[in-house]
């Protein structure tokens, strides 16, 4: 149960940061927090109490005693996608700072948001 709480609060806090923060680095941070939250939620859903990781490192391990492997595979993909988005976002942040000499979104805003 407590994992659900953790995942949900990460999603909500991250989204809150994206929606209200003025500093663009903070906005990107918020995005990555929310992503971590979604990943945690996915893994939590795949967990089964009292079972082990889906690796047959010992022949005595039984498939009935393992947790769901699919969410783990999905989260691996999601983490890497998140890293890619973050890296691109930060490159754009550097560009924006270069043009405007500020990280405050209200001072950057030229186009209508």
């Amino acid at each position, binding site marked *: 149960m407590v994992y659900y709480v953790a995942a949900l609060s990460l999603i909500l806090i991250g*989204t809150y940061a994206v929606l209200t923060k003025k500093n663009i680095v903070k906005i990107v941070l918020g995005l990555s927090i929310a992503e971590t939250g979604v990943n945690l939620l996915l893994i939590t859903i795949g967990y089964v109490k009292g079972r082990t990781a889906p*690796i047959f490192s010992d022949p005595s391990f039984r498939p009935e005693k393992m947790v769901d492997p699919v969410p783990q*595979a999905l989260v*691996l993909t999601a983490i890497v996608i998140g890293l*890619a988005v973050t*890296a691109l976002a930060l*490159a754009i942040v550097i560009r924006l700072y270069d043009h405007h000499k500020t990280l405050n979104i209200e001072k950057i805003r030229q186009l209508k948001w």
Partner: protein
Amino acid sequence: MKKVLALASLAVIGFVLVSTLRLVPFGVNKMNPQVAERYLREGVARTGSVNIVTAIVVNYRGFDTLGEVTVLFLAATGLGAVLFDKRGKRTQRTPASLIVKSAALILFPLIVLLGAYVFVHGHLTPGGGFQGGVIIATGFLLMYMAFRSYDVSHTWLMAIESLAGTTFVVLGLLGLVYGRSFLYNFLPLGTANAVFSAGVIPLIYVAIGLKVGSELTGILDHLMETIR
């Protein structure tokens, strides 16, 4: 005003999610007998990989992984495009102390070795191409931090990146030629729990490891080299 609006919408999202997740019990087996349980039951025998997560990532859902590799490649390409004319001399960094320098020199080969170990053993132990690649990239990060003039050859990075990506797709196409479908595991599976087993899985993971490692190093390098 904006904050109130944001909080209100978050309250709605939170409420919906909480009331939905109450219906999803924690820690109970929700596996689909036709999908997840079959991976667990047949995975080792049919893919040769002891680590079922690796079997799914590289084999069952290998197409996702190809997409994922593309996403990273895309990020590296996009980053290079966005920061294109900002390259130049790196900002003056404060030189690291002797301790950091010598520690980096000792650790760097070990870190790269660890990364290589992780992606070669991806089908046996936790870890795989991505983890190994990221570990290698952190090794390069350490070198960047320790030495002011440390530099990686861009031509080499690009060549490794390009070749590794090509290898992945070509392995997939070979599956099409020698097997029945794209990414088909056309090599013999061997005995489980040995390094040379699981057919193409280790080969693909090595390609992914090299690709991720060189891409992330390239991203770090690009970010570090931008003039302020």
